[in-house]
């Protein structure tokens, strides 16, 4: 095990996969000479050269589309978009093309491409750089969607994404880039999609946390234990497509209570979807309504105090759990 930051773990995954497979190549805005807006690709241009690490013009839809075309004809492109907000410029290529081509052409073509993008609030980047939109991509059949929380998962899931033959939307988090964690040294440390991680075991309530919210949920769980004697089970799904619903349902059947935490908007969100799935399939096991803790239903404000109350904090999760167990 080595301790490294989330961004370094991503960098290691890219480096190892590029070394392993010569068809893996990177494209994105300022990923080469500039070393990446968040330094995820630092040093890769130097190591692999400008044929494999390509700085692109600011043309999101076209660089993703070129990735689709290149993936259809023999490469494994990893395209970096500077934020998830910018990915909306590439929505046509991601949804109408990448996600659709295998199905639309009767299985004749495949698109083994990864589109990486960071999301998340907390850096006062305002209403066009800070959103959390995993729900947009969760919505789309044909895509795989990863939302890694830890450094180990960042590395293992990115390696799995690159090796997969399907288009993957790989959603990183700006806050998590600097977080440290233990990462297996093994070059074949791959985290398979569709396998949730149980971050903390408990019998009283199930908390499902998406992306950074898995960490916030774990903190809330400690507080609940210390101050309220409530033992929460914290589940990090790690990937949303495929989703490891079994692990979540098994937990809910044990705890009989479920709280879902996400940073994104409430309407049509990951939590809305998951709450529907859980109530469809484990209704009889629930002793209380499913609680959702979500980002505020607003564009992300710039003001620091406003921003801080626009995405879920530990206390809101604690409150939701207390409501779920009937203590509030």
């Amino acid at each position, binding site marked *: 095990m080595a301790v490294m930051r989330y961004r370094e773990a991503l960098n290691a995954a890219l480096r190892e996969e590029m070394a392993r497979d010569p068809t893996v190549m990177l494209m994105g805005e300022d990923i080469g000479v500039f070393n990446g807006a968040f330094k995820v690709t630092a040093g890769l241009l130097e190591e692999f050269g400008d044929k494999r690490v390509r700085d692109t*013009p600011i043309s999101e839809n*076209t660089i993703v589309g070129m990735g689709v*075309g290149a993936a259809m*004809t*023999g490469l494994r492109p990893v395209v970096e978009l500077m934020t998830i907000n910018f990915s909306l410029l590439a929505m046509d290529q991601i949804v109408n093309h990448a996600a659709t081509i295998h199905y639309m052409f009767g*299985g004749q073509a495949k698109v083994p491409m990864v589109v990486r993008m960071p999301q998340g609030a907390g850096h006062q980047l305002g209403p066009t750089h800070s959103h959390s939109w995993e729900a947009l991509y969760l919505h789309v059949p044909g895509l*795989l969607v990863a939302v890694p929380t830890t450094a180990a998962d960042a590395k293992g899931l990115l390696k799995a994404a690159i090796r997969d033959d399907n288009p993957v939307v790989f959603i990183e988090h700006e806050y998590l880039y600097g977080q440290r964690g233990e990462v297996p040294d093994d070059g074949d440390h791959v985290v398979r999609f569709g396998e949730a991680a149980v971050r903390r075991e408990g019998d009283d309530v199930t908390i499902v946390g998406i992306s950074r919210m898995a960490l916030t949920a774990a903190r809330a769980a400690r507080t609940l234990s210390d101050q309220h004697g409530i033992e929460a089970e914290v589940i990090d799904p790690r990937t949303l497509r495929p989703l490891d619903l079994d692990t979540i349902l098994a937990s809910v059947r044990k705890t009989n209570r479920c709280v879902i935490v996400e940073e994104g908007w409430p309407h049509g969100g990951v939590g809305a979807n998951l709450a529907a799935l859980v109530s469809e399939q484990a209704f009889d096991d629930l002793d209380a309504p499913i609680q959702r803790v979500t980002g505020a239903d607003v564009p992300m404000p710039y003001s620091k105090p406003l921003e801080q109350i626009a995405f879920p904090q530990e206390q809101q999760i604690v409150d939701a759990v207390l409501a779920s167990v009937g203590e509030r």
Partner: protein
Amino acid sequence: MAEHVADAAEQAGLPEAAVAREWLETMMLIRRFEERAGEMYAKAKIGGFLHLAIGEEATIVGSTRALRDQDYLISTYRSHGHTLARGSDPNRVMAELFGRVDGLCKGRGGSMHMFDAEKRFMGGYGIVGGNLPLAAGFALASDYLGRDELTLCQFGDGASNQGTFGETMNLAALWRLPVVFMVTNNQFGMGTSLERHSAVTDLMRKGEGFGVPGMRCDGMDVMDTYRVTSEALAIAREERRPILVEAVTYRFRGHSMADPEEYRTKEQVDEWRKRDPIVVFGDQLAAAGIVDESERVQMDVATIERVDAAVAFADASPHPGPNALYDDIYVLGDQVRGWYSVDERTPTPHRGEDERAMDSAVLPHSEHEHGVAAAPKPADAAQRDAD
């Protein structure tokens, strides 16, 4: 006599007789195929939208014949002609229009989304301008892998107004990609005429600001289209830079079958019809003594029979069964082992899935809770069908 024929052909700049005949036949095939497709649409054998390329045959055949087998062709939602010209089986193209299992895309794509991997026909695409980045991506892969492949990307005059046009021109020029962009200027973006939709109507110039030089061909003239496309492809191959070719042409029929054509006059259509590319080329071949009148009629009859056979084939091909609904959403493998792992909605089977037999050994999820494992056993399914 033979010498005389060769002389006349050479004088007219015609290709050798067998080649010229094949071009004419292919243009005839596209014309007759499209006409029949229109009839089948009227008879509701074909659903959705149907965009015919009648009038554009010379642009399609002239440009496609400039490609080698290893080169990629990518097109738009008006792509039956490109598919046929690339050599796809007309039976399977018609079956795709009919939405049947023997269609090129198993009935999933329909008229706007043809694809034939074997022929390196890389697809018709329904999003205007959406195919341009893909074409640059093919060229990028060819370049990256050191393969001697070229890409020809066809799109309409309307697509030249999309953001992807400028973005792709810039990137293809910047990265010196071996790709030729052909804007099929048929004078209209749907019902909006060129001068009403583009500030620059000299479309061959539209790439210049992005570093992509332009050329123009007479898209009603198969030989001119072939010559100019060949020249552009040679530049792309040898000089490693993209070229934009404008093919000036006209569609004789409406934008789609649902087009009352209120945006143009009958006189204008008639004027262009005088330049019918099949008639003009046939006359040239007749004048050169390559194809005489009776042979032309014979070729046309054979083409009609070929298209009749395609219709019969399509009609006989079954509709996809409901169990095909969930096929090919994902490439199955280590992580995605079946449809179920990506759709967790309900414990009951989804539409079409109750007929699916899935090896429980590859199910990634526990079997007893939900999903396919909870689906009725075949006997139950049969019982429900009977109900």
